[in-house]
């Protein structure tokens, strides 16, 4: 029986920008405009999209690092917004995060032991002396084993490691409480290609060994394709297409998804000819500070009609387990 690990309901997040002029109201950024997603235990959901699509905001909301303007996040059936500060701190053991920048996400002045053990310490600050201390040390040791580092690395500082090793430390930190859910925000985009593959393989192995559920946020379709079971494509704060990996990559329905696939440079395709260039998606993502009435993609969409400007398409079922929000899908 599968269990829903993460469930978001009508998630919205708006930010108010600092006032630029005394005479105009401050602008609002519509970062997320109603996102409903769920992930079953042991599965992995990829969230793809370009900058400004709200994927990082989504990650922060799911990690309770930020509060939604509307809607809520449920982890293992518990609504995070209903938890007290104390309950939330305990609940954090169940969901952990891996950040993009392996240089910035580790405190340069802490040892690896302290970095990896931070969540354990936050859970039970007084633990650490006497018998219980042994188990904490053991938990840290196991996490460091699991990511393929050595236990005598524990007393080193982050700057003694390479980028790939630092990302392993970050994964060990996320893994140490044996969480159900790990949210990874661009975990490999700062790494070299050969090292990126090592980290992706590690994430796969950990999923098999520990049964963790992933939400993987990435701009790289190849990475998402490799790691994820399901993929959500986001554009301007909305999910525009949601499907199983195979379905999505075989038969993308939303014009944005198609454009995204076409834009990925392919090896062995030869230099781009005039015809290739004609099919490139033009324009750029429109401002997040505007409330859009119709389809958010309409201004760049090659298929857009007047209907697209007036009427926002619903995310609707196209096929078994395949949803898209386009009038023409």
């Amino acid at each position, binding site marked *: 029986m599968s269990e829903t690990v993460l469930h978001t309901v009508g998630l919205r997040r708006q930010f108010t920008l600092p006032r630029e002029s005394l005479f105009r109201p401050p602008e609002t950024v519509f970062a997320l405009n109603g996102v409903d997603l769920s992930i079953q235990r042991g599965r992995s959901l990829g969230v793809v999209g*370009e*900058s400004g699509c709200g994927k990082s905001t989504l990650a922060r909301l799911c990690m309770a690092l930020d509060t939604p303007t509307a809607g809520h996040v449920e982890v293992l059936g518990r609504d995070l917004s209903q938890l007290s500060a104390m309950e939330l701190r305990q609940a954090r053991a169940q969901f952990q995060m891996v950040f993009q920048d392996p240089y910035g996400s580790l405190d340069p002045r802490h040892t690896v032991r302290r970095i990896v053990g931070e969540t354990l310490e936050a859970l039970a600050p007084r633990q650490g002396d006497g018998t219980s201390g042994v188990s904490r040390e053991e938990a840290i040791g196991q996490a460091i084993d699991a990511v393929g580092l050595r236990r005598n690395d524990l007393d080193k500082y982050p700057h003694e490691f*390479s980028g*790939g*090793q630092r990302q392993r430390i970050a994964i060990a930190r996320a893994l140490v409480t044996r969480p159900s859910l790990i949210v990874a925000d661009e975990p490999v985009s700062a790494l*070299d*290609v*050969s*090292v*990126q*593959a*090592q980290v*992706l*393989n590690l994430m*796969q*192995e950990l999923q098999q060994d520990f049964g963790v559920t992933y939400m993987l946020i990435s*701009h*790289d*379709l*190849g*990475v998402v*394709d*490799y790691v994820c079971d399901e993929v959500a494509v986001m554009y301007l704060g909305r999910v525009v297409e949601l499907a199983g990996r*195979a379905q999505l*990559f*075989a038969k993308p329905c939303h014009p944005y998804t198609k*454009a*995204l*696939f*076409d*834009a*990925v*440079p*392919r*090896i*062995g*395709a*030869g*230099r*781009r000819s005039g015809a*290739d*260039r004609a099919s*490139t*998606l*033009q324009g*750029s*993502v429109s401002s997040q500070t505007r409330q859009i009435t119709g389809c958010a993609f309409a201004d760049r969409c090659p298929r857009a009609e007047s209907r697209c400007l007036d009427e926002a398409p619903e995310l609707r079922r196209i096929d078994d387990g395949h949803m898209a929000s386009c009038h023409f899908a």
Partner: protein
Amino acid sequence: MALLSVDDLHVELQTNRGMVPAVRGVSFAVEAGGTLGVVGESGCGKSITALALMGLLPEGARVRGRIDLGGTDLLGLSEDEMCHVRGNRIAMIFQEPMTSLNPVHRIGRQIAEPLRLHRGLRGANARDEVLRLLDRVGLPDPAKRIDAYPHQMSGGQRQRVMIAMALSCEPDILLADEPTTALDVTIQGQILDLINELVDDSGMGLILISHDLGVIGETTDNVAVMYGGSMVEQGPTDSLFEHLAHPYSQGLFAAVPRVGERHDGPLHTIPGTVPELADLPPGCAFADRCAKASDVCWGPAPGMAEVGAAHHAACHHLGGAV
């Protein structure tokens, strides 16, 4: 006679561990209208090579070899003479357009700067030329955007401005160092299209540096793979990607997860990490990460050997590799 030819280029950088070899004997050539892609991971020496071409190496760096541009050895030029070459005959665009543009000046003024310096254009003439350039690089509504500040533009637009600046003096060679790495995929496509189009139209040579094999594949006719400061494989892009000869190129190629190609097993990885320049082994730089490495690999470094038409690789074990 190639437009630009680099012969046995060596660069040593000053670090607090003494002089460290960053580029170790790199040779290549670019014809007029030709395109060369340079692929490699961080620290492979690809950006240092580019900076050596521009004469912009950091303080205390030592250079040996020959960089020949239309018959002149750039390494023999004085700083003043190099200033004339830079921006005028070789232009460069960088990864992060925001940090390469001065935030306090309007973009029109920044593009006009090289026009004034190298082409003596001033006032209305310069402004007309700037407008033409902005239009050429496909910036929407140039007449309005010419007075914008860099922060008022998107990343893709800023990169277009950088390209306009690079084009302003009709350079012979355009050096692009990771020009699309900071951009979104769909914007990356637009910028690559623009670069391709400009090369086709103007006949300038292009050297494109990237870690992304796909970007290289879609933009260049020739490609060079660098590792540990040396060139390990070089050849026409299509045939090179078809028959990767060097174990490093093979490993790099296999390590990239590609859309729509489901791997049943784990991704291919190259063990170990990208080496520090100061810690490079004496022989083949890749030996300690290479599955094919044997005793001979720890001896003298392998030279370039022909493995196909105009396709060369530097490996002691080429026989069984293809």
